[in-house]
């Protein structure tokens, strides 16, 4: 039961990663690429970590996995913001 649930979560995570990567490659401009990449990948990582956490015996390891997810969420949101702001400035400047 846990195995099945974990497999479903991990596969869902992989699906979102795939969607994000396809978005990065196929979408026309920087902003929509950023949108696809950060949103889909963060959700993908969350699902992946939820799937892995089901297998962990130790609560401490689950907390560490959660911390990784939160750190990646904050870092990717911030870097997406910085990249988008820089691009807007460059557009305004040119």
């Amino acid at each position: 039961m846990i195995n099945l649930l974990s497999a479903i979560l991990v596969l869902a995570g992989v699906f979102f990663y795939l969607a994000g990567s396809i978005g990065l490659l196929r979408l026309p401009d920087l902003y929509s690429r950023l949108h696809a990449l950060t949103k889909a990948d963060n959700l993908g990582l969350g699902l992946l970590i939820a799937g892995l956490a089901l297998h962990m015996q130790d609560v401490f390891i689950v907390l560490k996995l959660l911390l990784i997810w939160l750190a990646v969420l904050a870092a990717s949101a911030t870097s997406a913001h910085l990249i988008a702001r820089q691009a807007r400035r460059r557009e305004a400047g040119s």
Partner: protein
Amino acid sequence: MNTASLLVFDALLMLTLVGLAWAALAGSDERLSVILFIAFGLVLAVAWARLLAPDVALAEAAIGAGLSGALLLSAVGSRPRGASRTRASSMQNHTEEGNTRVLQWTITLLCAALAGILAWALLHALDIGPTDMLPQAISANLATSGVSNPVTAVLLNFRAYDTLLELAVLLAAVLGIFALGPATPGYQPAGPVFDGLVRWLVPVLILTAGYLLWVGAHAPGGAFQAGAMLAAAGVVLRLSGRSSIGLPNGLTLRIVMAAGVGMFLLVGLTLLVLGRPFLGYPPAWAGTLILMIETAAMLSIAATLLLAFHGGRPKSHALAARTESANAATSNTCNEEQTP
């Protein structure tokens, strides 16, 4: 089925590594090469994890990919845009171009020779592998080493000499960085979003450094990984425009820089005076001594890596604070005008 899928994964990993290395070396855009190099470092860390070497994987991800990447990016960023390798060489005259070519070929030949030697050593090691007595010797003596992580036991006890000399190399490197002159100017104050990240990320990084240092005694971690975390905190602080915190000042900085080598020598010489071999810890004290040395080493490593990112001797804080307050008035206009 399981071994077969792992084999496919490993093959993909190796192909990705070679592909990334090729792309990083072959491209003419330096910025892109650096980003590919960072990706290469991260994939290499995964490869180390697959080889069941989590200590090396951590060090590779933190130092090889993270800090070296930041260092290279800032080096590329500090040069005028468009000064790429090809354009730079076409601007120069023929002799210099010839020199560059000779240099490139020399490097290529040396790298090929190194790769050949490594391949030979690998084949040799595979040949004698199981009869090698080193792992058995380590696990037989692990109980007296003061730690239960064999990697830390080797680095800080059985081969402590090597680590002492590594720290001495880092000290020499940081002296070289000081000789480069004053540090490059810091960055503009960050916007609210990045600033908000920095405010909680830096404490978490410091906490992680302490955790890695402590956990190194019985699990993957240790002074190098912890030092890289501390240095990362300093890099993030510098990127967010806080040039007056992150590194201590004057004499304190010098003490921190020399702390690793100093603590190592202090412990080693004290043991000599007490009639033990140099760095031959008494088993009852080994754990404490290793933790003391690792703490000092972590501070030195962090200071060295961060000073490398600063690219020179840091300005004194009073001066930095004065320049900052002077810049604060004009920072808004500067921010708008700064187009890379």
